[in-house]
């Protein structure tokens, strides 16, 4: 479970080091460019709704 959450953290930008055995490094720009494109597509597809962040009113 730690490896899985570590991998998600790494893919999500929350960690600088990949978990042991993870196949991709920060230097693999082709992968990260594709990953950014995929995230951007998802954001574009779902961005029609408008809403505030919940904690903004706190």
């Amino acid at each position, binding site marked *: 479970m730690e490896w899985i959450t570590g991998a998600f953290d790494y893919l999500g930008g929350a960690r600088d080091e990949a978990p042991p055995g993870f196949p991709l490094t920060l230097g693999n720009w082709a992968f990260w460019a594709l990953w950014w494109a995929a995230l951007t597509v*998802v954001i574009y597809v*779902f961005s029609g709704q408008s809403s505030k*962040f919940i*904690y903004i*009113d706190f």
Partner: protein
Amino acid sequence: MIFNSWDYYLLFLIPAAICFRLAGPRVRPWIVFASGSLFFAYFSYTQFGGWVGVACLGIFLWECFVSRFYRVRSWICWLGIAQTVLFLAIFKYRNFLSGLVWPNAAENPLFWKHAFLPLGISFFTFEFIHYAADRYNDRTEQGTVGEYLAFILFFPTMVAGPIKRYQDFLPKLRAVSREWVVDWQRGVTRILSGLVKKFAVADVLTAYTNHLNWADISHAERHILPLWLLAYGIKIYADFSAYSDIAIGSARLFGIRVPENFDWPYLRTNIAEFWRHWHMSLTSWLIDYIYIPLGGSRVENGRVYANILVTMLVSGIWHGAGMNFIVWGLLHGAMLVVRRAWRQFRPLGAEPASQVTLFFSWLLTFVCVNLAWAFFCMDVKTALFFFRRLIIG
């Protein structure tokens, strides 16, 4: 709509982060001050109270002025804390507190008809209090005027945290990371991930969480009710952790690391671990400035339990001006007390817990946390009605 708006990225984040990186060390704090002030003014005007909201920038400037007089063991630190609590009370709790005495708003002489919350008030006031308390206890240096203004007006974390600590922020402001490429790669990735969580998870679940109102609860099939509440539990995590991702990623573009706020809280196997991994910057603030000053765990059991309840009561009140938030905070306090009492009755053994035990511990924690969300998203009457419908039908 701030972090999910084009204005934020094109008018503020990208220009400010680039200018900050290119500037010399003496100018950098003033770039943060200027960009933070413009950010506060712009979004206050457009979203939070118009020109009156903008005028609240004066709170930061006044706070900076007063903070220059903070000395170790000086009463002025207490004055600073008192005035900050007063700001919070006036803006956030005035109508709620006066409403306890005069429930009818029309008869309430203290009712503020056009009440609004200055942008980020719950968060920047906690940073003000932290600084005053730590100056009093000689836990942080004063820093320059520019450095303190940069700390309180650092816009990536201004609106909703993470709640920073001055002694952690200052070294990073003074010696900015030179690793442009890594910082921007990680920062942009973090921001994009946060936006995905916000748009593709949190906002999608709004269609279900909007049903958490009296009318819809009264007409819904019973088996749907827990699904709506679960949707809220996932939504609030996705929404707030998304905000934190964007804030932390934005700070990374400046080369500044701010505290993490979430570390997979829903995977934790007890309520204490949950709070050590949910809204972590708030939890550590509450521990340092409420729990420990009350005596923490170094007093006899009864007082420890009371300290926990008071701390979580403060947490509840901080989250909102309403009885439901007080109930929510006390529920979590009660869960923490029960957990502590259980651990004293049955201390952890030398052998690690079995997988079955861990699974049921996780399940219990997950269910209790999500049931408690009912009081976070609904008023007390509606939440109790929800549970009545859930249990009795």
